[in-house]
């Protein structure tokens, strides 16, 4: 079946990744530029982006690379900042189960953005689901690596003002949140997550909100689970 081929999946996946392309353009370029300013050239930014692929944590890692050598702190800090991925992959377990070997790449690249797309966007009928999810994740991974390297190479040459363009990622999350809660059965859980995260942020501040927000959300969902999943 030629229409179930990988190019067809790429074509179906690409439009969904455009917001991420826009957001990564800004955030990736800025990352490469910042790395270069600290003495890590575009090969380093490309390597970290391809290998670690963890967005905002890579910004934090710049700090770790420019202070006293402390690998244990680096490990535990990354664990805490990225703890939210535990819930992403828990949420996608059933969906990814039937997807064969390509799912290893999907798990490897399970960023905020890939989680949002994979959990909200359904593959079109004329595309193979596995290839469709793989194509979305592959594209966003390539964008991130390419823009990080580009930032290290030519980031300094950008003269027009692109500040604020990273709002594309916030807008993506807002839109996909709406897509989730537009379905009646998802509404309580969506607003519970929103409220618990606001509470986590209000109580613990921007730098340590992730784990409290996750714990509160988990408690709320487990308490309401019998009712919500009836």
């Amino acid at each position, binding site marked *: 079946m030629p229409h179930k081929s990988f190019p067809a999946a790429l074509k179906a996946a690409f*439009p969904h990744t455009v917001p991420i392309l*826009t957001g990564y353009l800004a955030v990736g370029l800025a990352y490469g530029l910042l790395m270069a300013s*600290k003495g*890590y050239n575009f090969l*380093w930014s490309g*390597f970290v982006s391809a290998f*670690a*692929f*963890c967005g905002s944590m*890579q910004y934090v*890692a710049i700090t*770790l*690379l*420019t202070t006293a050598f402390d690998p244990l702190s*680096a*490990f*535990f800090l*990354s*664990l805490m900042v*990225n703890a939210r991925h*535990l*819930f992403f*992959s*828990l*949420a996608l377990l059933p969906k990814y189960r039937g997807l064969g070997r390509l799912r290893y790449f999907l798990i*490897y690249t*399970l960023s*905020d953005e890939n989680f949002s797309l994979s*959990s*909200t966007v359904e593959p079109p009928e004329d595309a193979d689901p596995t290839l469709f999810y793989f194509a979305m994740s592959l594209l966003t991974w390539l964008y991130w690596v390419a823009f990080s390297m580009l930032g290290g190479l030519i980031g300094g040459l950008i003269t027009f*003002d692109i*500040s*604020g363009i990273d709002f*594309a990622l*916030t*807008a993506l*999350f*807002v*839109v*996909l*949140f*709406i897509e*989730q809660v537009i379905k009646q059965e*998802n509404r309580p*859980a*969506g*607003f519970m*997550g*929103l409220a*618990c995260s606001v509470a*986590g*942020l209000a109580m613990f501040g921007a730098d340590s*909100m992730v784990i409290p*927000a996750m714990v509160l*959300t988990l408690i709320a*969902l*487990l308490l309401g*689970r019998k009712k*919500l*999943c009836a």
Partner: protein
Amino acid sequence: MRLNFIQSLIIVCMVALATQITRWTPFLVFSGGRKFPKMVEDLGRLLPPAMMGLLVVYSLRNTDLFTGSHGLPEAIAVAVTAGLHLWRRSTLLSILAGTAVYMLLVQLVFV
């Protein structure tokens, strides 16, 4: 002022390792053909909307409500994105318009 080559490599590996642990643990715990416990199945259904709520807040976490522009550019741009999306349901239109509004606000209005 940066770490040397080997030290840098070790730090990057630590960051990558910890990140991958957060992504793989649930898959490794529930690997094999076993049926998921009911609780995991329920969480698989409830977590996607809940985590989208978390991501909205997380991506706005550094907004300063008490000084500067008091979060007004963010509030306006989120309202434009959400309003447009509820009206037209076009993902690209909502995101591009919301982002354009935000860029205009932070570059020209709230400078």
